[in-house]
């Protein structure tokens, strides 16, 4: 196992795609120390920014102790292994990840788990905007795997979601959750914000807490006593079920808790 400790507080963004179990595999500490990273526009060696130690334990593969909120692209495209980050982490964490596990004991910045295909990301703090969303302009959203966030999540999260599961446990979620999603499940255990599921064409968004409004391009379908999140879990309701986004001829499903949203009662007359 490799333990990385930042040697100082970084003032410039650091691009460290090499912090990845697949890259570290089969390399000794000297080789790892020689891997290249960019700090701002300067090319550097990993050892110039991090103290690199090895300890005997098998798992996790990489542990980062300290604040790496300026360090971007950790675990991009990783297929195996495990990364544990004890501190805050920068943008593009685990982007296009295809397997393995990342645990963050702190906050994550934008695009955590963007376009991921497989694997598990656990963020025990808050996550930034574009959680699980593809790069700007791209339609290649998350295809599979699971992301669990214990805290709040920023806006435009789960955009172009095409599979997998996102669980959000915090009190606040930004606007445009599940924008243009076509498949997959987003479960918000507490409250969600406006423009929920805009342009969605498929998949499910479940909100167990409060939602200020449902977009006018959604239509009420039914009231269901409970809803399935995945094969192992289902949430008890009752839930209002909305279909949409009709502006995209979508057949996505929006489940909104009946108990926590008395102001949506007006929809019942259309049932």
């Amino acid at each position, binding site marked *: 196992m490799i333990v990385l400790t930042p040697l100082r507080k970084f003032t410039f963004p650091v691009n460290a795609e090499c912090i990845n179990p697949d890259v570290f595999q089969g390399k000794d500490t000297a080789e790892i120390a020689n891997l290249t990273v960019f700090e701002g526009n300067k090319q550097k060696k990993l050892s110039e920014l991090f103290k690199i130690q090895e300890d005997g334990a098998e798992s996790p593969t990489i542990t980062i102790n300290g604040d790496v909120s300026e360090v971007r692209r950790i675990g991009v495209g990783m297929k195996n292994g495990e990364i544990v980050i004890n501190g805050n982490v920068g943008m593009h964490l685990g982007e296009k990840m295809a397997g393995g596990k990342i645990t963050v004991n702190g906050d994550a910045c934008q695009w955590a788990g963007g376009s991921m295909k497989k694997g598990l990301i656990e963020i025990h703090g808050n996550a930034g905007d574009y959680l699980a969303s*593809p*790069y700007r*302009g*791209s339609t*290649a959203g998350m295809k599979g795997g699971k992301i669990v966030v214990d805290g709040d999540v920023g806006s435009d999260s789960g955009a172009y979601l095409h599979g997998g599961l996102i669980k959000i446990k915090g009190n606040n979620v930004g606007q445009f959750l599940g924008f243009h999603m076509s498949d997959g499940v987003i479960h918000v255990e507490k409250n969600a914000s406006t423009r929920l599921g805009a342009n969605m064409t498929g998949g499910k968004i479940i909100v167990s807490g409060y939602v200020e409004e449902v977009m006018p391009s959604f239509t009420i379908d039914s009231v269901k006593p409970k809803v399935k999140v995945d094969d192992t879990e289902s949430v008890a309701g009752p839930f209002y079920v909305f279909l949409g986004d009709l502006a995209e001829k979508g057949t996505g499903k929006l489940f909104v808790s009946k108990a926590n949203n008395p102001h949506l009662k007006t929809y019942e007359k259309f049932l």
Partner: protein
Amino acid sequence: MVELLIKNGFVFDPINGINGEKMDIAIKNGKIVEKVTRKAQLIDATGLTVMPGGVDIHTHIAGGEVNTGRIVRPEDHVKDVVSKTATTRSGTGYSIPSTFVTGYRYSKMGYTTVMNPSMAPLEAKHTHEELNDIPLLDKASYPLIGDWWFVLEYLRKGDLEGCARHVAWMMDITKGYAIKIVNPGGLESWGFGHNVHSIDDQVPNFCITPREIIVGLAKVNKMLNLPHSIHLHTNNLGLPGNYVTTLETMKALESVPYEGRPVGHITHLQFSSFGGDGWGNMKSAAEEISSYINAHNHMTFDMGQVIFTDTTTMTADGPFEFTLYQLSGHKWVNSDVETETSGGIIPFHYKKNNAVNATQWSIGLELALLIKDPWKMFMTTDHPNGGPFFAYPRILAWLMSKKAREATLKKCHKKAQKKSLLPSIDRELSLYELAIMTRAGQAKALGLKNKGHLGVGADADIAIYNINPETTDIARKYKSVRRAFKHAAYTIKDGQIVVKDGEVVGNVSGRTMWLDVQTAEPCRIDDEMRNKFKEYWTVEYDNYPVTDHYVKVKDPIIVKASV
């Protein structure tokens, strides 16, 4: 000025009939000369292929729609970031590269002259500013004239001479090179949410048909003695069964006297050669189209080959882009450019496992191989509509090697494989024929007297490739030839070495060409015309023209018109 001597290369210069002969090329002051002094810098081209610099007749590299394409596709740039080097600037690439990257990538493939085929007159200033920033290449731009209101009015009145003078004036105010016609009549209709569906449909408000626009402008082109013919994007482009319209268009142009020079150029022919009557049974009409072309000499064509990749479609054909949007559901841009034209942009991913896309790929190659005379059919992808231009070496490989075609075809959709004519075509193009399709033929069709050949007096635009035609069987070793075309051993622009071993080593600005058409009488510019500019355009008449200072390196070509 530096003198250069390229020694001992295998020279392919189709305009002068030189087919792989070993000879020396002497260069002085940016021109090819008989001989040079002993002090000349020597390039040893022993065992290498020497060709004139590549000429691209149709590639969207600058202007309003290209730039809008860049804006809507950040994800296209992020996957292809180009760092700066000691001689080159940084940029981004893939389907819509930044200006500098465009220049570098063309030059790396041995290209020296490119033509930007669609410039809305209103956006001419912008286009020229972008062209100024594309290094290493000579460029020109074709203004979109086919749906320009004044032209439609002149043609309706049957005043061809007035129309000709007006077009001459337009070449000057837009700094344009040829008459570009896109979906004639269709773009004007698109302003009202309609389209035309054959060349005999009426254009709303103008009482004119696409046939009259095409034939009228072809005649105007003749009267003005413009170096290139009309450059035509046909009606019904990209729709199943459109080959009928294409055939009708070609037949309509038979009425214009041929006189030894082509009267029209149909661009990206692949997109105009669809058979069938719906997407379900869409098939190739390459046989029908090519048999007509083989029997007639009055037109030239380019391929518009499709490459299997994620690219961006952009054309002035707004209604067609709307159709594409309905098919793909992708993000899209669509616009109506005032009284002039329209425009649209949609990202598009051509996939092997899509029957329609794979058939399109096949149609492009079928056309190029079935049309017997390479002087009629040129290689393009309609960059970036069929695929980015730096995929050209892949197309060359398909053209020169049946093995390469088979390797790709067997990965295609089963339905497309079954319908494809490619297995029945054994033709494999030689380097001489490829030189025609990529430079000589294009230069000739464009009327560029100093380009596309290596005769004395020609511009010293030369490409040298690491191919030994004596020892290499290009049809079998297509992979190494493909590599050679991708990274030219040398590219020489205006007598200076700009690329060596596939890397950019020099910097030349490249000129912008335009036509200075001299008519006996000037174009009639009266108060009525000025008033129309005031009423219908956002830019007034006085501010409309592209003045000379917009063009960084000027290369006006004087044309004596016969009106």
